């Protein structure tokens, strides 16, 4: 294996020529030519649905291309399954977290690469290697925990550990930081840099363009399944990337802040919200037209707070008032009836019915509004859903297609559209832009601001500090299940958030 970082003289490690891939009539990729060199960090960027995931799935042997060729080390390869790709040293993390939920972290990390003697698993070696790996990455997850019981972020870390455990020559990372906090992401970048130093090639997909520019040696921009250009990242800027991705320049990402008038009524008032040790004695108000951000490290209890608030989990104590009227919330249906909408953080687990079309996913909580005596009146539904999808800039080709067939970002947009269907009084959005491209992010921010302007009280839970800073009128920082700090106006800065989230 060539360990040189200089790729000019050597045949590229991976070479794609004229690669195309269709799903039904959808052209996910067409005529993709691309070279990935030895020991480089190569980023793919593009809008939601541009074909990034499809492209890396071709590399990882998940999809077989319809046309074109794939060469690894100059030799033509036809992968029938990820197994074949792994044989060639190509490993990866898929965008949608895919762990075996019933099994332990340790088993998941070494799945397919178990240390063995004559087919019998060497459990001790397994444990030893996990400890090594965790030391190397700084990711610390209890080895015996069931993968399904972990938070999304921990699951993401398990995925990363698994990719690293392959000792692969090429590691593909499809949006690995989507669920990670800033500090977590930093740790991952360290790992990536160390991998590169060791000669490993990393293919990296992300919607965080700064991240891409800081990390990648080369960057390839995709649009509509085609390569726009591929070149050294040093020559790109965020703006140049955006322009190439969208086919136009993007103006302001964040809409101007319009804090509520001082006399604006309190729409949501929460007091004494506790649930075990996950969230304790939480109290806050959100006024009409106000956007309140919740910051904190992963695991600080923000999701737990939101779930307890809307009745998804049973709170130990809670006093909630909407528009000044006290409400009793014991199940999500109660909070919906009170006008509180909740956008969950995991679209796959808590959000979407993957086998149903977008429209059905959107209208699920609102069927009462579009039905008469229990009968759904169809036409109204379809047109309203179209409008909404348009509004969130979702690309949904066959309206009857199950949302499973949508790209990750578009799935997220469908979920967002769900809560725009009926105007809620309170919107709690847990990681609303996870996996969404920059153009669409701007649209979603715009939307959130518009909703606030319409008098909705908005709570945004996010691990992207930038997002909180750009969007929120006020930020509450959580730590260990408590709200430890409230930041307003000028106080909302990266430093303040981080120090509040970390300081003991």
């Amino acid at each position, binding site marked *: 294996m060539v360990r040189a970082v200089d790729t000019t003289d050597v045949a590229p490690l991976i070479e794609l020529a004229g690669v195309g891939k269709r799903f039904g009539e*959808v052209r996910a990729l067409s005529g993709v030519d691309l070279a990935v060199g030895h020991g480089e960090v190569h980023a793919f960027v593009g809008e939601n649905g541009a074909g990034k995931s499809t492209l890396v799935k071709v590399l990882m042997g998940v999809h077989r291309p319809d046309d074109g060729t794939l060469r690894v080390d100059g030799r033509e390869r036809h992968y029938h399954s990820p197994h074949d790709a792994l044989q060639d040293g190509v490993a990866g993390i898929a965008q949608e977290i895919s762990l075996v939920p019933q099994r332990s972290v340790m088993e998941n990390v070494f799945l397919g690469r178990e240390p063995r003697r004559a087919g019998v698993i060497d459990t001790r070696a397994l444990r030893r290697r996990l400890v090594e790996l965790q030391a190397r990455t700084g990711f610390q997850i209890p080895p015996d925990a069931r993968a399904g019981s972990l938070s999304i972020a921990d699951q993401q870390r398990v995925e990363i550990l698994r990719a690293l455990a392959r000792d692969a020559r090429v590691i593909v990372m499809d949006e690995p930081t989507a669920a990670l906090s800033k500090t977590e992401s930093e740790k991952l970048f360290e790992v990536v840099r160390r991998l590169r130093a060791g000669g490993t090639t990393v293919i990296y997909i992300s919607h965080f363009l700064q991240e891409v520019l800081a990390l990648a040696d080369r960057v390839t921009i995709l649009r509509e399944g085609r390569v726009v250009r591929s070149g050294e990242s040093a020559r790109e800027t965020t703006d140049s990337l955006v322009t190439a991705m969208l086919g136009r320049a993007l103006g302001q990402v964040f809409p101007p802040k319009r804090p509520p008038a001082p006399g604006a009524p309190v729409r949501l008032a929460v007091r004494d919200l506790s649930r075990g040790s996950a969230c304790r004695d939480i109290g806050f108000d959100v006024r009409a037209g106000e956007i309140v951000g919740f910051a904190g490290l992963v695991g600080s209890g923000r999701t737990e707070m939101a779930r307890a608030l809307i009745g998804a989990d049973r709170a130990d104590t809670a006093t909630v008032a909407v528009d000044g009227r006290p409400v009793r919330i014991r199940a999500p249906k109660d909070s919906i009836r009170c006008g509180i909408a909740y956008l969950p953080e995991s679209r796959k687990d808590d959000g979407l*019915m993957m086998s149903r079309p977008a429209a059905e996913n959107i209208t699920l909580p609102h069927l009462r509004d579009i039905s008469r005596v229990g009968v759904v009146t169809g036409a109204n539904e379809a047109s309203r859903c179209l409008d909404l999808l348009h509004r969130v800039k979702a690309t949904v080709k066959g309206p009857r297609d199950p949302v499973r067939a949508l790209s990750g970002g578009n799935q997220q947009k469908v979920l967002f559209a769900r809560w725009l269907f009926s105007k809620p009084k309170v919107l709690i959005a847990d990681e609303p832009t996870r996996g969404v491209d920059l153009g669409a992010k701007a649209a979603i921010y715009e939307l959130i601001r518009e909703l606030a302007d319409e008098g909705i009280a908005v709570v945004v839970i996010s691990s992207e500090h930038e997002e909180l800073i750009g969007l929120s009128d006020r930020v509450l920082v959580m730590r260990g299940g408590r709200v430890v700090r409230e930041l307003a106006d000028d106080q909302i800065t990266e430093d303040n958030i981080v120090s509040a989230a970390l300081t003991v």
Partner: protein
Amino acid sequence: MSPPEQTAAVPSKLTPTSVRSLGHQCAQRGREYGVLAVFAALFVALSLSSDAFLTTTNLLNIVDQWAAIGIIALAATLVLISGGFDLSVAAVFSVTGVIAAKLATSMGVAPALALGVLSGLGFGLLNGLAVVGWKVNSIIATLATGIVIGGIATNLTGGNLITVADTGFTALGQNELLGITLPTWFFAITAVLLGFLLHKTVYGRYVYAVGGNIEAARLSGVRTGRITIAAYGISGLAAGFAGVMVASQQATGQAGAAPNLVFDVVAAVIVGGTSILGGSGAIWRTVVGIGLLALIQNGATLLSLDETYRQMITGAIILCAAAIDVWARSRTGGA
């Protein structure tokens, strides 16, 4: 139900495919109907190979013969889409017939029939409560309740047939309306009703949601427990109705009346293409599934197939139908 035929939801200037999407959708539609194609092929083959097949009498006979299983399978479709299984239907089918027959000897025929049917609803709701309240896996729960209910049926009959001579009792299963037997009507009506319920009503949407992603449904304010319980209730009601209908047809209540019922019901629903994983499926699919099984059985007799070959061919056709349906649908990249 899915939104009416329409091209790209969002007229996307970005995708070159939107102009082609109409054609795509047509192709997709066609492919969704893989199992229907198998059914049609078998239908044509039988029409060509047996003169007796394509006669009104024969076709009406077929529907009449499968009406009871069909009614139960239609309701089972709901349960499967909601992500569950109801293995107790055979026992409910038997016990309700027994109850109706037994009561008919001591009270009016009409209330006896009604109570028989209602007892089916009752058993179904109890199944639902066990599944939802105790969170027991539905296969094991309904297997267990099926055994209990079977025991009740045996207990009521004492191992005998309960014969009812009253012509009022037999009307439900034997009479005709416009030259078509009542069971056939009931099957058709059930198909229309449940099709409407599943595809046009809020309840139907919730059934899909519960089966598709129960947590998402809960977070969307769906009272998932009630939806599930209602699905089992409907299944019990259908099994009860079918049981009473057949008891009426046979003028007999009998424990253990339908040893293979569960297999036929599950086969019909799944052959049609409804997923056992929940969240997808349709009433028309079960109608086609029933049709397929019925054609196979009818064809075997008409063509005088030897019993052993009949079994082998039945199995082979079911397998092929399922494989073709999978193949056709895989081509859409869709559900």
